[in-house]
Structure formats: structure tokens, C-alpha cells
């Protein structure tokens, strides 16, 4: 069977774990990790060219055109909804998700955050409305997509002016985090993912999303129904591992790959051995 993943760091990590676990139990796996962006990988699954890859629960909103459904803001309801929809419409099974919520977030330089005592987005809104200096580096998608920055702005009651935004093309947080971390062009805040490994290293601090403005994105392995029927043991193999991946753990593992430059498969195997999932 073919196991794939998206092209980002976390995809490589989760994908490597899946590959290692399945091979460890004697299942023949063809690894096509870091295949491409979401659209490519999802299309490949629907077309039957790949069999399994780690996806995020919140993406159900886009897959099934239900952006405004409030269920996506609740981890349990979101998971149940996407599981039901994908099973019914595409015969794709969503296995157990990780508790880590990898959604969009705003991170700030630690020195600025500590100076102004900012820990949540509510604090941030107050800071912005009070005239504090802010320059946020973000992708065009983050700035325009109704589920991203606009969602934060309406939930917390602040508005960033054009001059307070540095918009980059492309959706990756590495560039935005680096900009904030090194203070390029006066940037002191950045678009981030909550599980980004670079946060600690670049001395950035996540601002907590107390009001749940963001959709919940929990990673879970999704597999084609026919393939699961051939290998029903996969569910039991992957469930405990994914359930063990908390936000902090994912951040640490991502940091090892992104910051320390260790190989994703090596980091994955080390985690699995260290926690008794594999020898």
C-alpha cells in the first residue's frame, strides 16, 4: 500500500511515523512522503493513487464546502462531522486524531510580548487598539481568507491597517517566523501554526486563542475504506500513537527537524522507541 504525506515538516514527521509503524508490523509500504500541497495529496487519495496520509480535521470545511458550520470550532464535533461525511461520500475512514490542535495563530517576539505583558489574543487586541507598534508578517492567504486573520479580527475586536501588515506570497510560516525572529523590516509579529517547531528557537511566543476564533485542525490518519478492510489492524496500530501526540510534543518533534535539521524518519523512529510504540 502507498503511504503519502503533505510537503511540510509535520507531514514528513507524521508520515514517517505511519510508515515505520506499518512496516514494523510486516505490512509492505510504498512511501511517497512529502508528495505536495493539500490539493495534490487529497486528489491522489480520492483517485486511489495513494492509500493513506495524515490530514487535518478542520480541512473538512473546505473539502465539503461547509465553511460556516460552527462544528469546526469544536474538536469533538468537527472530528465526528468530517468522519461521517468522508465515509459517506468517499469511503474514506478517519482514524483517531491527535489531541494537538495545529491551527493558525499569531506569534509575537518574546521581548515585545513580555514588555507589554501579552499572552492572549485579547491582550493583543488591547495592545493594537491602544496604539501599540505592530508589524505582522503573513501570507496573502492568511490575510484574505475569512477563516484566518478576519476571523481573529472579528472575534477579538481589532483591525490591522495596511501599514501594519507585511504580506508575503506563499503559505509557509517559516518565512514569516524568521522575519519576526530577526526583526526584518520592523516585523515583530508573525503568522504561525500552533505546532511550529521554530517558535522556541526564534524566541517567539504564541498568543492564545481563548475565544476559539480558529477552526480546530487536529491531525489524523485518513485511509481508503477498501484498503482498511484489507488491513483492519492498521486502526489499532496507529490509534495509540496519534492519541499520544500533544501540542507540546509535536512542537518539540517539529523543532528537531526544522531547527536541528535531523531527518524526519530518524526523529519519528526515536519517538516511537522512546515511548514504547516500537522497538
Amino acid at each position, binding site marked *: 500500500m502507498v503511504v*503519502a504525506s503533505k*510537503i*511540510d*515538516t509535520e507531514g514528513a514527521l507524521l508520515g514517517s511515523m505511519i510508515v515505520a509503524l506499518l512496516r514494523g508490523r510486516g505490512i509492505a509500504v510504498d512511501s*511517497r512522503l*512529502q*508528495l*505536495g*500541497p493539500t490539493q*495534490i*495529496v487529497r*486528489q*491522489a487519495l480520492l*483517485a486511489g*493513487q*495513494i492509500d493513506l496520509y495524515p490530514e487535518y480535521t478542520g480541512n473538512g470545511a473546505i473539502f465539503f464546502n461547509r465553511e460556516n458550520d460552527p462544528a469546526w470550532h469544536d474538536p469533538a464535533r468537527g472530528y465526528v462531522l468530517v468522519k461521517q461525511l468522508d465515509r459517506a461520500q468517499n469511503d474514506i475512514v478517519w482514524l483517531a486524531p491527535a489531541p494537538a490542535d495545529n491551527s493558525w495563530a499569531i506569534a509575537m517576539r518574546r521581548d515585545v510580548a513580555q514588555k507589554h505583558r501579552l499572552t492572549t489574543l485579547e491582550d493583543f487586541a488591547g495592545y493594537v487598539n491602544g496604539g501599540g507598534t505592530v508589524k505582522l508578517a503573513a501570507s496573502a492567504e492568511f490575510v484574505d481568507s475569512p477563516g484566518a486573520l478576519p476571523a481573529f479580527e472579528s472575534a477579538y475586536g481589532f483591525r490591522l491597517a495596511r501599514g501594519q501588515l507585511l504580506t508575503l506570497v*506563499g503559505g*509557509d510560516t*517559516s*518565512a514569516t*517566523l*524568521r522575519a519576526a*525572529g*530577526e526583526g526584518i523590516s520592523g516585523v515583530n509579529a508573525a503568522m504561525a501554526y500552533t505546532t511550529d517547531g*521554530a517558535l522556541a*528557537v*526564534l524566541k517567539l511566543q504564541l498568543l492564545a486563542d481563548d475565544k476559539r476564533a480558529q477552526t480546530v485542525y487536529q491531525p489524523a490518519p485518513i485511509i481508503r475504506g477498501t484498503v482498511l478492510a484489507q488491513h483492519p489492524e492498521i486502526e489499532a496500530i496507529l490509534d495509540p500513537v496519534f492519541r499520544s501526540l500533544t501540542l507540546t510534543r509535536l512542537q518539540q518533534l517539529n523543532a528537531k527537524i*526544522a*531547527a*536541528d*535539521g*535531523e*531527518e524526519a524518519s*530518524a526523529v519519528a523512529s526515536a519517538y516511537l522507541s522512546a515511548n514504547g510504540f516500537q522497538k
Partner: protein
Amino acid sequence: MNSMPRNRVLFALIIVAVAAGALGSFVADAPNRLVSGQPLGLWQAGGATTALPLALLGAALLVLSFARITRATRLAGLGCSLAALLLWIFAAGSSASALMAAAPPATRIALGWGFWATVFCLAMIVLDALQRLDAHGLLRLSTVAAIVAAIAAMALAGHFDGLSLAREYAARRSAFWSELERHCWLVLAAVAIALAIGAPLGVFVARRPSAGPGIFGALNLMQTIPSVALFGLLIAPLSALGVGGIGAAPAIIALVLYSLLPIVRNTHAGITGVDPTVIDAASGVGLTPTQILWRVELPLGLPVFLAGLRIVTVQAIGLTVIAALIGAGGLGSFVFQGIGQYALDLVLLGALPTILLALAADFALALIAACFERNPAP
């Protein structure tokens, strides 16, 4: 000795090389993969032992730029610049190893802009020296081969292991070789299919000139479509047709479409470029049109055709990098992962082999073309 430099090119290049080497950043020392490194000069980066010989070679080249231009001074120039180039590259490896030895494993030592600027200048000096010596092909080939061999030997001996580029490679060794293999297969498949379609098409247009404007017009239009767009556009219709290969199929189709124009054009030019009196004589002595095609037109048109094949192969090697965007794999995977992670060394891991592959293919095909040139006609 003159007060003005006799060899102004050498003078200018060596001044820039020395300035960049001395003042620019030789390497950048970063605590991890994500942050920018602190720029360091050669002597700061533990290059004390190499700094002196390099300075002497630089001084020698500076002096030579004032000297009378004789065969001896030219040879001396070639020798000094070759030595300087190799020593400079050697120094990069040594500094990286020295810095890594005393640092935590997450440290990254990247090559700085000063390093690259000086390499570029020294390479230009070597080329200039070969040019002024009026070096024939063998000497040029030996010089290039010597440089490549020296660098390869250093690399194999692990001399460059301290550099961040080597660390990226080490973390992905098996993936690197499988993606390299996949890249080569994609290029070969695309070029082979383009040949199979394009060469007969070129013969057809040569035989039927009225079809020319239409066919060339369509192919020209194809070339103007941005490659990324074409790769993306092909996924939907192909998956509707049920064609699999996760990205390999649309990638190869797009590559074939881009490769058709040079092949058709050069096949056509090769055939129509044959002296018409030769064709007349061939008809007159009783060769059938098919015999004329295979025995006269194609052999005589071969050099032009091979030139087209060369262009197509080099172009395909570069375009295949884009194919990684749609899941086709290849060296482009590293380029895009590197862009996503803002890890420029990962981008280099994809880009440098692509460039070397293109240069090697270009060289090999030029060699093959030269073999056919030796025989016939002016």
C-alpha cells in the same frame, strides 16, 4: 614594468576577488537551521593556514596583471588561478570542519556571499587565462576535469562534511539518490517521447510546407504557457481519464509538450538545410524519396537535429524541477521543501545537482555532435 596593468581583465577580477574574499563573509555561523548565521571572514573562520598561501597567490596574480604578456606569464596566470581556486574551496571545507568541531551538533556553517563572489572571480580568471593561451579543446577539457576531480576527491574524503549543505545531504542521503534517479527517468521519458512524436512531425512539415505555419504556431503558443500553470492544468483532465502515476503522468505530458518545439523545429531545419542540388542529384540518379530521406537528408541534417536535442535535454532537466510541485518527485522536491522551510541549503541540495546534471548532459551531447561533425560537409 608598466604603470598601467597590461591585462585589465585579470587586474579587475583579482581586485574584486581579494576584496570579496577579505571583506565579505566567507562563511556564516548559525546556531541552528532556522536563523541567519553570523558572517565570518576567512581568518576568523579558522583559515589561518590557508590565508597566507592564498594571499601570496593573490599577490602573484596582481603582479602578473602588470607583467608583459608572454606565453610564460599566461601559463603562470593559469597555474596561479587554478591553485587559488582549489585552495579557496579547500579552505571552505577546512573552516567548516574546524568551526563544527567546537560547536553543538545543531550548528550550521553556510557558505557566505564573499565565498561565492571570490569563486566566481577566480573561475573567470581561469577561463580568461585559457582564452589568452588560445587553449585548444584538450587543454580546456583537462583543466575542467582537474578542477572537478579535485573537488570530488575532497568531497569523497569527507572534507566538506562540516558545511551545512553536507549536513542537509547527510540527513536525506537515500531520498537524495532516489529523487535524483526519478529526475533522470522523468527527463529521459519526456525526451524520448518528444523525439518519437517530434522527429516524424518535423519530417512531415519539411515535406509539406503548407502545414508549417499551423504546427509551428501551435507549438509556439505552447511554449508561452507558464510551466507551473501547465503542470497544474493537466492534473484534472488526467485524473478524470483515470491516468495514474501521481504527478508523473501530467509532468511527463507537460515536459513533452515543451520539448516538442525545439525538436520539430530543428528536425525541419536540418532537412530543409540540405543543399537542394544534392537532393536533385539524388533524385536524378534514381533514389526513391524514402531512400533520399534516410540516406541523404537525415544524415546531413543530423548536426542541426543534435543541436535541438541538446537544447531540449537541458531544458527538460531544468523544467523537471517544477514537476515536484505536482507530486512527480525529482530534485525539485528539495527545492520546494527548502523554500517552504526557509532552508536555503535544502534548496541548494536540489538546485546544484540540477545545474551539474544540465552541464553534464550539455557536454555529453556536444561531444556526440562533434563526433558527427568530423565527417562531412562544410
